[in-house]
C-alpha cells in the first residue's frame, strides 16, 4: 500500500485541524467512558443523595449473577447472527442490483430506503406484523402450520429481534457493497468472461477478493452496531423476554441505568461491554484484517 505523506512545518496547524475531531472524541467518548468507569466503583441511590465507594462490588454482583452469563452468550449469538445475516443479504442484493442494466437506479433507491426508517417506527412495524394474535405475518405463518408466539417461544423471539435489527443494516451494507462493486474495473470482469468464467466464478475469484476491504470495514461496523445500537429494537419488541432469552448486554445497560436507576450496576455492565467490544475489535484487526487485500 502506498501512502502520500504530508509533512507540516509547525505543529500548530495540524493540531488545529485535528481539534474538532479530538474534541468530539473527548466529549462524547472519553469523558463518558471515564464517568462510567468511575461510577462502576460506587453504589448510589437514584437521586444521588448517598454515594458510597464500593470497590469492585458491582462487578462481583455481575460475576455471580447467572443471568449475566446467559446474557453474554445470547449477545454473542445475536451479534454474530446480525452480522452474518445483514452482511450476506447486503452483498447478495448489491450483486443483483449491480447486474441490473435498465432501471438500476430505481432498485438502488428502494433498497436503500429502509435505512431512512427511524428505529422506533420500524420497531412498531415489526411488533405489529408479528403480533401473536393480530399480526398479518402471524396469520400467514399459521396457514403453513407455524404457531408464532414470540411472547413465549424464545427461539422465535431471538429470530424476531435479529430480523428487526438486520432490516436497517442490510440497506447500509448494500450501499457500501454496491459502491465497492462499482469501483471494480469492468475490464477485469470482461477479461474473465472472455476466458469463459461464469458469473459465480467471476464473483468468487474477482469481485469478492476485491471487496475484502469493504467487507472487513462492514464486519467491524456491523458487530459494533449489534453490540451497542440494538436496545431500541428490543425495547420496542420483546423487552428482553421471554424469560431472559433476548436480554442482550446493551439492553441490560439501558434497562438498569435508565429504567431501574441502578446507576452503579449499569456503569459496571457498560464497562464490561466496552471491554468485550474492544477485545472483539482487536481480534478482528489482528487476525481478520490479515486476509484483507487492499
Amino acid at each position, binding site marked *: 500500500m502506498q501512502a502520500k505523506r504530508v509533512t507540516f512545518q509547525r505543529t500548530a496547524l495540524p493540531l488545529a485541524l485535528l481539534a474538532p475531531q479530538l474534541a468530539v472524541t473527548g466529549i462524547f467518548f472519553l469523558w463518558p467512558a471515564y464517568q462510567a468507569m468511575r461510577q462502576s466503583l460506587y*453504589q*448510589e*441511590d*437514584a*437521586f*444521588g*443523595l*448517598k454515594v*458510597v465507594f*464500593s470497590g469492585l462490588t458491582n462487578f462481583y*454482583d455481575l460475576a455471580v*449473577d447467572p*443471568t449475566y452469563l446467559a446474557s453474554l452468550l445470547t449477545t454473542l449469538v445475536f451479534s454474530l447472527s446480525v452480522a452474518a445475516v445483514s452482511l450476506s443479504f447486503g452483498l447478495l442484493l448489491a450483486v443483483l442490483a449491480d447486474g441490473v442494466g435498465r432501471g438500476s437506479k430505481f432498485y438502488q433507491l428502494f433498497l436503500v430506503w429502509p435505512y431512512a426508517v427511524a428505529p422506533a417506527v420500524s420497531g412498531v412495524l415489526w411488533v405489529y406484523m408479528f*403480533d*401473536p*394474535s*393480530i399480526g398479518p405475518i402471524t396469520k400467514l405463518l399459521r396457514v403453513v402450520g407455524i404457531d408464532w*408466539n414470540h*411472547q*413465549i*417461544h*424464545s427461539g422465535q423471539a431471538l429470530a424476531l429481534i435479529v430480523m428487526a435489527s438486520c432490516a436497517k443494516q442490510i440497506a447500509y451494507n448494500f450501499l457500501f457493497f454496491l459502491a465497492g462493486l462499482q469501483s471494480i474495473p469492468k475490464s477485469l470482469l470482461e477479461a474473465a468472461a472472455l476466458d469463459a468464467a461464469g458469473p459465480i466464478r467471476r464473483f468468487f475469484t474477482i469481485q469478492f477478493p476485491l471487496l475484502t476491504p469493504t467487507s472487513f470495514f462492514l464486519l467491524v461496523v456491523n458487530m459494533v452496531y449489534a453490540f451497542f445500537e440494538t436496545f431500541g429494537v428490543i425495547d420496542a419488541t420483546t*423487552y*428482553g*423476554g*421471554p*424469560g*431472559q432469552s433476548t436480554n442482550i448486554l446493551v439492553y441490560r445497560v439501558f*434497562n*438498569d441505568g*435508565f*429504567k*431501574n*436507576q*441502578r446507576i*452503579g*450496576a449499569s456503569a459496571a455492565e457498560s464497562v464490561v461491554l466496552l471491554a468485550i467490544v474492544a477485545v472483539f475489535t482487536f481480534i478482528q484487526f489482528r487476525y481478520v484484517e490479515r486476509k484483507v487485500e487492499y
Partner: protein
Amino acid sequence: MSLKSVFKFTASALLSLAALSAQAAPIKIQWWHAMNGPLGEKVEKLAKDFNASQTAYEIDPVFKGTYPEAMTGAIAAFRAHQQPAIVQVFEVGTATMMAAKGAVYPVYQLMKDEGQPFDEKSFIPAVTSYYSDTQGNLLSFPFNSSTPVLYINKTQFTKAGLDPSKLPATWPEVEADAKKLRAAGIACGLTTAWPSWVLVENFHALHNLPLGTMENGFAGLGTRLEINDPLEVKLWTELTAMQKDKEFDYGGRADSAQAKFDSGNCGMMMESSASRAAIIAAKIDYAMGPLPYMPEVKGAPLNSIIGGATLWVLKGVPKEQYKGVAEFFSYLSKPEVQAWWHQNTGYLPITNAAYELSKSQGFYDKNPGADVAIKQMTRGTPTPNSRGLRFGSFLQIRDIIEGQLEVVLTGKKTPQQGLDDAVTQSNALLAQFEAANK
C-alpha cells in the same frame, strides 16, 4: 401639560403598572406527568380549572413521556437542581421515591406545614394505604389509581353456550368457561395484561398471602420476596396446563395482551379497570366483574391492590411554590373534581365523598361495570398483605417474575422452579437496593 410632566406621568404610570403586574403575576408551579392523548387533555383541564379558580398560583403541566421517562426525567432534573415541584410517579416507583428522604416532601407534612385542611380519613383506605408509611401518614398524593378486574366478551360467551350475565367468580369457574370458549372455536379463553400485577401481586392480596417479608416491604428496606408459596405454584401449574390448549393464552408483558381481547380473539381478560374506555372504543360487547379467586382459601377474596400513579412533591424548589402545591392538592381532593376525574377517565375516585357523589348522580346506573373496581377495592379491611407493596427495583422484579412465567408456560421449568428462581433473582436486587439506600 408640559413635556416634562408628560414624561413624569408616563414614568409613574409605567412604574405602577409594573408593580401591579409583579403583584398579579401568579407563581408558576411545574407539574411533570405521563398522561398523553385523551388523559393528557383531562390533566390540562384540571390545571386550567385550578388556575382559573384563584390568582396566586399557576400550575403548569408538562408531559414527560411514559411513566419511567417521567420518573427518570424528574430524578435527572433533581440531580441537576432543575426539578419540578410536582412529579407523577407510577406505583412501582414508590419504594425508590420513598427511600429518597432528602428529595421528597411527604404530602402529609406539606399539608400540615402549609396549614391546609387534610383529612386522611376521607380517602379510600385501599388507595391511600399503598402510599402511606407504617404510621399511616400519606407520603404522596393519589392521583390516578386503578385495579385489575375481569372483562368478558358477551358475544363469545353466548356463542359458547354460556350465560353472559353470569361472570365466573372463582378460578375453577374461569377454567370451565375457558374450556367451553375454546370448544366453541374462540382463539383463546383467557388472557391477562400486566401478568405480575394481576397473577402475583393481586393474587396474593386477594388470598391474604404475603408477597414479601416485613409487611411486603412497608416495614423496611430489609424485605425479601416470598412469592414461591404453594397457592402461587398451584396457579402457575393450572395456567401452564391451560396454556397448552390456549384456554389461557399469555399475551406478553405490560398491557400488550389487550390486543387479544380488543380484536375479539379472546373470551376473557384480566386488565386494569381504567381500560374500560379502550374496550368500549374497540366496540366489544363486554361485561366486567371482580377478579377470580381460589374458593378453598378461607377469607378470600380480600380487597385487590391498586396500580396507577401518585403525585410526589420534590424538595428544593423555591419556597413560595409549596403553598400553591398544597392548595392544588386540596382542590384535587374536592368531591366534584374527583368525581369528574373518576367519571371521565375510568380511574378510581380517591375519596368516599366522590364515590357517593358519583352514585347520587346516577353514574353507575348509566355505566354498568364502572363500580366493579371500587367495590372490589373496598371490600373488607386491608391487611398488611393486601395493603400494597413496597419493593426497591420493582420495575425490574416485575420483569424477572414475568420472564420466569414465560419460561414456565412453555414447560421448560416447573412452576416451583420458576417461582424459586424469581425469588432468588429478585432478592439479589433487593439486597443491592438495601445496600444503596441504607
